[in-house]
């Protein structure tokens, strides 16, 4: 199978994730969309690794997974505490950080 197709898939997934981040208000959904974008990247890395015949891309994919796992822990904690204080998981409600 032509590896370029995997790249098309990665681009599609990334676009879906980015669109979700931009248009959805629910923090959990936004969060999942970010995960989707990360996985799209991982797919692209792995594909490039395969195309070029070396392992650099696969190693970076592992790094990304580790960083994503850590990010999930911190992000979910923020979302949970936000929900406790505001009784809402909408990202637009938390807009106090402005001039």
């Amino acid at each position, binding site marked *: 199978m032509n590896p370029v197709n995997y790249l098309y898939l990665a681009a599609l997934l990334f676009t879906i994730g980015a669109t979700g*981040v931009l248009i959805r208000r629910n923090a959990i959904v936004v969060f999942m969309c970010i995960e989707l974008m990360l996985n799209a990247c991982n797919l692209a890395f792995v594909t490039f690794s395969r195309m070029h015949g070396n392992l650099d891309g696969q190693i970076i994919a592992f790094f990304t997974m580790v960083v994503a796992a850590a990010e999930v822990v911190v992000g979910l904690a923020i979302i949970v505490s936000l929900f406790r204080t505001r009784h809402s998981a909408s*990202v*637009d409600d938390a*807009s106090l950080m402005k*001039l």
Partner: protein
Amino acid sequence: MENLIALLIAAPLLGAAVLLTGGRRLDRVGHWIGTLLSAASFVFGLILFVDLLGKNAEHRTLIKHLFSWVPVAGFQADATFRLDQLSMTFVLLITGVGSLIHLYSVGYMEHDERRRRFFGYLNLFLAAMLLLVLADNYLLLYVGWEGVGLASYLLIGFWQHKPSAATAAKKAFLVNRVGDMGLSIAIMLMFTTFGSFAFGPVLSHATQASEGKLTAIGLMLLLAACGKSAQVPLQSWLGDAMEGPTPVSALIHAATMVTAGVYLIVRSGAVFNAAPDAQLAVTVVGAVTLLFGAIVGCAKDDIKKALAGSTMSQIGYMVLAAGLGPIGYVFAIMHLVTHGFFKAGLFLGAGSVMHGMNDEVDMRKYGGLRTYMPVTFITFGLGYLAIIGFPGLSGFFSKDKIIEAAFAKGGTEGWILGGAALLGAAITAFYMTRVMLMTFFGEKRWQPDENGNEPHPHESPRVMRIPMIVLAVGSVFAGGLFSIGDRFLHWLEPVTGHSEGHSPVSAWTVTGATMVCLLVGVGIAWAQYGRKPVPAVAPRGSLLTRAARRDLLQDDFNHVVLVRGGEHLTRSLVYVDHTLVDGVVNGTAAGFGGLSGRLRRLQNGFARSYAVSMFGGAALLVAATLLMRAV
């Protein structure tokens, strides 16, 4: 002997230091300390004078190097004193007349509680003036020059509780600053031209510099002289300086201060000799001032202001003579010395009159005082005869020589300058006769003042009479002593140089013309003030009289041109500052402020809009990378 030169200055300087820092415990003896130290300086001067007389004419210059003042490579200023015939003349005049004025002040200031301080200032004045005439370079001269300015400021404003005195002191100081600026510019020009400002190099190399530079130096020196010597156009301070105690007026007008300008011009004679344009300017200033001062003197009813006008006019004669070059230098100094005697005598006489008349200065409230104060009358009268140039008295010899020298300048200039000097002689005779008649002759015109105190004119105490008598003797004999056998000429010639001019008219014609002018002046004054009673209230007078009462509108001129002009200038500068400079600064600030205000909106707190900008930025980066690749 050279060490005495330093002592000459040190004595009055010590007096000033002791009296001004000694505090109240010196109040009872302070005036005698001041007088003694001033007299000591005079004695040192006499010793040096006798020493100089014993030497050959070529060896009469004593140099005393005190210390190296500013020892920088290429810029050497030394505290060095030079005593030659010219400085010696001034030293004797300053310390001699100065000591007499000190003695007089002991009586005059008797009831002033700040008398000790007054004597401290007087001593400071003498010290500064001695430093001025003894300095061997222009920088040290400048120190003395400024010291004289300071001392005159302190003394004119001595009665500082009177606003008029405080203002007069400030005015004298400020007008003098204009002249001081001229002197400092002249010194800088000398340094750039000659690489030095010591008398030796500057005056001996004067002819090697270009005439343009010498003219510039000469004109700046003239500006300096105008400030100190109260010459047109910087003469406005002199009349107001009468606010000071009368001995101060005598000191400023006779022995110190106003003579400094004449000294400066004569001392810098070598520069002026090589710059005919500057010389012409000097003569013009002198001729204009001698008429200006005389006209002002005619209209004043205040006895001291009339005498102040007369000083201005007589200094005008000296400046005129100094501008004539080698034919006039000696006579300028000779007139300066004789004038020192009779003008000091006249001022002390005026002080004596005021002393007896409850400090009244208006001559229209005097009259018939000759029987009440005979000594003042006789000494003042002798000073009067000397200043108008009565034959045989000192003013006759010195003024006559100046008029002759003015004619000897030659050409049209000679006629104009000589004519002005002759006219000045006539006006001098007129206004001095007027002062004399209004004060000592006619009916008594004084009235009780608003408190009912009628003045009781009386003769002054002996301590005041003695200086007046000594000065009167000087006014009578000094001229003859100097002129007969040309003693003064031979004495001063080695320093200033002398050349005989070729006068188009003979000396006897000039003397005759001067006598006619004198008689006309005295006659008109007698017809106006002697034959008719003097009105107690000044008549309205002609346009010229009214202008002369206001110092020929000098203050008005200064006000309109300088004060108003300065105000307009500063106002427009403030306007430019507010609109242009502040506009640029404030505009820049407002521009950045507005821009930041708009940029601030971008930070709206919505996480998703930040995400948009992040994606946008990333997209731009990718696009840019691709574009660079393609290129």
